[in-house]
């Protein structure tokens, strides 16, 4: 019994003790379950959140890999290129009910749409995405929307716009359908990684790319070149303005221009960028280089050169247009633009020194800028006597006008090389010395004299108060097997103010015709020089160059 009792007691006490313990276990389990539920909910929320954002992104992204690009502004912050959102039209063939009808109606809406190709792609139910037309105007999008074709849908995309139109078009370059730069500054922006993948149609928030160009100066130059083309009946013209200290290109215009928004214009060979992409034989403006070479090799402006006889080299005879029949000083060779004199100066310097000088000035190799890799200059394979003579007066070497302006800037600024740039540069860059300060000062003097001297070829380039200096160049255009006498490139290399130059200008007129106002002549002194005067009169106040009392 005691055993039983004790057992029953023991059992009883066991039964009595188990009930609350199991209840507390159940409770603990319940609480644990509740916490697990809470934890589970937290995990679910976290996963769900991630899921929803993924869905959102995939809905916003377009099937193309469009780039968002920074704005491009001129040196004063005026807008030259920007991205805007535009609706693009696509179709989901899976949702198209009647492919024939849809293609027919869309074909009527858009000119140039290949209806047959569209019909077959709309009928292909395996596809879920077909582009119809990208970059619609809002009005056009509304008209398509009003058609109410099921399965024809819109998505916002980024498109590049160029508010200034053709002005600066060559420098800006262009972009393709995916907003990727294919030429000019646009390509440079991609090369340096300043553009970014567009998430959906989100615009770039990056800082604008500031160019060295000044829109006001660009317009003045463009306007004057346009007038000059009309006045002298020239089918083409080009011009540029460069800061001699920083190498910044303040204006670069090539006419006929190209609107970056119009692909046909940008790809038209007639509209090539004559400033940075075309190479030309520049004619007598190269005599500035020859005179610089002479001054660097020990001559002075008063040194005499034998110009009494035409120069002979093999079967060629080099003559002057208006021979003086007597020896000339170096300054006179420049002022009278004597081919014989320039040839003699080159011969006395020697072929090696002449070639080395061209190399030092960057005229012997391509000039790479942000806008292009630069075409290879056309130069003689070997520099013999005849090449030496022709190089001295600007024939036998074809370089880009930009390249020549950069070399001239170095000769004008005191003698240090400049690297031309299309991006704004705040400070002058210390380049390598190419000529002595003395040579530079003498060149500035002779450039000014060529405009002020009554016998100077550049006298029509004088713009009152702005101390213009410069050199004319009339180069016969190269043709198959020789040169065309009546077709010339008339150029004027200018600088102002000549006593302490801040800018060089280069104005080129392609194939100008003789007019009553030019006395029937096509030489640069009669057309490019007065055009330069007009340009400088307009741009000098914009560039903050004070006029001096004349």
């Amino acid at each position: 019994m005691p055993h039983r009792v004790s057992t029953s007691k023991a059992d009883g006490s066991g039964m009595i003790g188990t009930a609350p313990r199991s209840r507390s276990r159940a409770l603990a389990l319940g609480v644990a379950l509740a916490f697990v539920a809470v934890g589970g909910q937290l995990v679910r929320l976290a996963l769900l959140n991630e899921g929803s954002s993924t869905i959102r992104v995939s809905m916003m992204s377009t099937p193309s890999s469009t780039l968002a690009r920074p704005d491009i502004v001129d040196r004063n912050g005026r807008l030259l290129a920007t991205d805007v959102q535009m609706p693009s039209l696509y179709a989901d063939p899976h949702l198209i009910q009647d492919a024939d009808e849809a293609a027919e109606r869309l074909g009527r809406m858009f000119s140039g749409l290949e209806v047959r190709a569209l019909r077959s792609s709309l009928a292909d139910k395996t596809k879920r995405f077909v582009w119809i037309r990208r970059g619609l105007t809002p009005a056009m999008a509304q008209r398509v929307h009003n058609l109410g074709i099921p399965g024809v849908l819109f998505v916002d995309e980024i498109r590049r716009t160029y508010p200034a139109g053709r002005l600066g078009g060559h420098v800006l370059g262009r972009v393709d359908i995916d907003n990727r730069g294919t030429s000019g500054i646009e390509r440079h922006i991609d090369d340096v990684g300043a553009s970014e993948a567009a998430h959906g149609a989100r615009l770039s928030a990056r800082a604008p790319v500031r160019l060295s160009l000044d829109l006001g100066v660009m317009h003045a130059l463009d306007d004057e070149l346009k007038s000059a083309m009309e006045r002298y009946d020239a089918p083409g013209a080009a011009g540029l303005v460069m800061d001699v200290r920083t190498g910044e290109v303040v204006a670069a215009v090539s006419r006929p221009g190209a609107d970056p928004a119009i692909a046909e214009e940008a790809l038209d060979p007639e509209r090539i960028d004559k400033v940075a992409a075309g190479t030309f034989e520049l004619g007598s403006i190269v005599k500035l280089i020859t005179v610089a070479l002479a001054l660097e090799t020990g001559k002075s402006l008063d040194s005499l050169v034998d110009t009494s006889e035409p120069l002979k080299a093999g079967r060629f005879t080099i003559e002057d247009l208006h021979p003086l029949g007597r020896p000339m000083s170096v300054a006179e060779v420049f002022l009278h633009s004597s081919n014989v004199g320039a040839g003699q100066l080159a011969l006395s310097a020697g072929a090696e020194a002449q070639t080395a000088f061209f190399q030092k000035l960057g005229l012997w190799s391509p000039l790479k800028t942000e806008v292009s890799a630069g075409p290879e200059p056309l130069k003689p394979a070997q520099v013999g006597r005849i090449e030496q003579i022709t190089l001295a007066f600007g024939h036998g070497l074809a370089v880009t006008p930009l390249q020549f302006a950069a070399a001239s800037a170095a000769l004008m600024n005191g003698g240090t090389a400049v690297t031309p740039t299309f991006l704004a540069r705040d400070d002058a860059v210390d380049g390598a010395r190419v000529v002595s300060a003395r040579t530079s000062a003498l060149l500035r003097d002779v450039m000014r004299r060529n405009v002020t001297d009554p016998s100077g070829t550049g006298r029509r380039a004088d713009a009152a108060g702005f101390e213009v200096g410069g050199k004319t160049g009339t180069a016969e255009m190269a043709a198959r097997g020789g040169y065309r006498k009546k077709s010339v490139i008339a150029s004027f290399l200018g600088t102002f103010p000549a006593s302490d130059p801040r800018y060089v200008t280069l104005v080129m007129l392609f194939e100008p015709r003789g007019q009553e106002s030019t006395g029937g002549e096509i030489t640069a002194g009669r057309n490019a020089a007065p055009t330069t005067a007009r340009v400088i009169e307009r741009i000098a106040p914009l560039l903050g160059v004070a006029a001096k009392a004349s």
Partner: protein
Amino acid sequence: MRILNFVAVFMALASAFLLYGLNYDTRMIESRLHSREREAEQARADIAVLRAERAHLARPERIEPIARGLGLEPLGARHLLPGPGLASSDITTSSTGP
């Protein structure tokens, strides 16, 4: 012990409700945030279009004929005074031009 268990259950329930409330609020805020972001994005896109249009309207090629029509002309040397030391009578003469 029992009270403790009740408190624990109560706490678990309360925290579940609280969590639900927080979750709900968070979703509301997120949706408001997304709608604000969309509005900001739209505003940015509109501003981009307006800036492009403004630049297009203010392009020199268009402004010049308008300015000339109003009797204005490009700034030239004769509009600028050559340095200091001029009397006011000179300024009047110079600014009226030839």
